């Protein structure tokens, strides 16, 4: 499937063919994509602007807040600080890829049950980071969860609910 890169970021680069990269093949939530991103596009911008997957949020856009956390080949990364063109062949999982057939991921359910959010802006990043935190085996205690979730900032201060949700989901995993 060919997708046109976001207008505006590509126009200047398109005038100079040397700035174009090769075709980028990535799988996002199991769906393969063939793209020709502008070299300047972050993975976050390709997800949001090219693929319309706006669940992943742009917070600080400098790698400090964690709102843009996604899994690349199973590992959590901040998608704002990495160029999309450097991920040829990668398998990306975003918040849109967690629910299976209308059934929420257990951590999504736990966030609802434990009020792990207020405004919700940081929540997709919190949940993606939490999924990885549990998979890494770093969710053994509230102290451990707080340390290993420190890359995700919540300005509403919903941390007690976030830690409770991850604790709960880790016990059920």
């Amino acid at each position, binding site marked *: 499937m060919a997708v046109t890169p976001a207008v505006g970021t590509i126009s200047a680069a398109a005038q100079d063919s040397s700035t174009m*990269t090769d075709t980028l093949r990535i799988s996002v939530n199991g769906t393969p994509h063939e793209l020709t991103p502008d070299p300047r596009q972050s993975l976050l911008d390709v997800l949001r602007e090219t693929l319309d997957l706006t669940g992943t949020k742009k917070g600080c856009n400098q790698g400090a807040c964690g709102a843009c956390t996604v899994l690349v080949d199973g590992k959590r990364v901040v998608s704002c600080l990495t160029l999309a063109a450097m991920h040829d062949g990668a398998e990306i999982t975003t918040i849109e890829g967690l629910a299976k057939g209308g059934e929420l991921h257990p951590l999504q359910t736990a966030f609802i049950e434990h009020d792990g959010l207020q405004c919700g802006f940081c929540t997709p990043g919190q949940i993606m980071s939490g999924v990885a935190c549990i998979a890494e085996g770093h969710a053994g205690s509230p102290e451990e969860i707080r340390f290993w979730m420190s890359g995700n900032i919540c300005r509403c201060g919903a941390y007690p609910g976030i830690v409770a949700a991850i604790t709960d989901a880790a016990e059920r995993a």
Partner: protein
Amino acid sequence: MLLFTLQKAGSPEDAIAAAQAGARYIAGGTTLIDLMREEVERPERLVDINALPLKDIRVEGEDLVFGALARMSEIAAHPDVLRLQPLVAESLIEGASPQLRNMASIGGNLLQRVRCPYFRMHDAACNKRQPGSGCTALDGLNGGHAILGTSEQCVATHPSDVAVAFVALDATMRVRGPDGERSFPVEELFRLPGDTPHLEHTLLPGELILEVRVPGGAHARQARYLKVRDRASYEFALVSAAAALEIEDGVIRTVRIACGGVGTKPWRMRACEQALIGRPPDRANLEAAAKLALEGTRPLAHNHYKIELLPRTIARALEMAGELA
């Protein structure tokens, strides 16, 4: 972000040729992309080196060897690192966030740029960003800045934690450039700012970091990293100390100390080490030796607290290392 071209290197030779033609290396990109977006870094060409075969983590005798592209999280979780070099693992875990540790390469970690706020603030003078423009931090908000190795041109600290561990443990690095390979101590990678703060390291044009080698030994197995900071995690050090100890018959036989958050480069504390050889590792000896770290310090208006904090951090890190016995 300004325009740039991106190419991918299939071999170290490809990468070095691209660098000779003006390209900058990019691996994890966590520093470079951030600073390119701020237009503090303005490379016109990037060469992606992630496909190069430099990802290995291996044991040679008691030495550990890290390929330059090994990620912080991979090294920190490696069983041989935890067994032979717990200080390296601890210093890595205490740095950045889980996401950034999955992304950042060990070579890039050593070459990361300073976190002085004025470095990325275009309306403030900064000799690193624009040589000759002045140093806003000198009379500005300098609570987090250095007390060792500073100059009138720059007072920014080197931000890496693992570099402090590497300097303490006498790690060496192997690099390859247009004229071949060479090895040198990691400590010699870093330059003092002096009159040229825009020059931060001693790599020659086109040189590519291949690997970092950390010598093992009894002291390396009994080593800790203490990082004092404003938050419990995901924050840069106000003061940090890496301490490695070998105690035999109740006295210190081998000791290595280096500190972060205080120097314009990772700072080895050789006077403290010398004072401890042959002494019992009791609190009085550790505190007396730690005070020697203050020689040559030059506090600024807002970081006087580091004069108190530095020896305390060193003494406590040594105690923590001693508790591993």
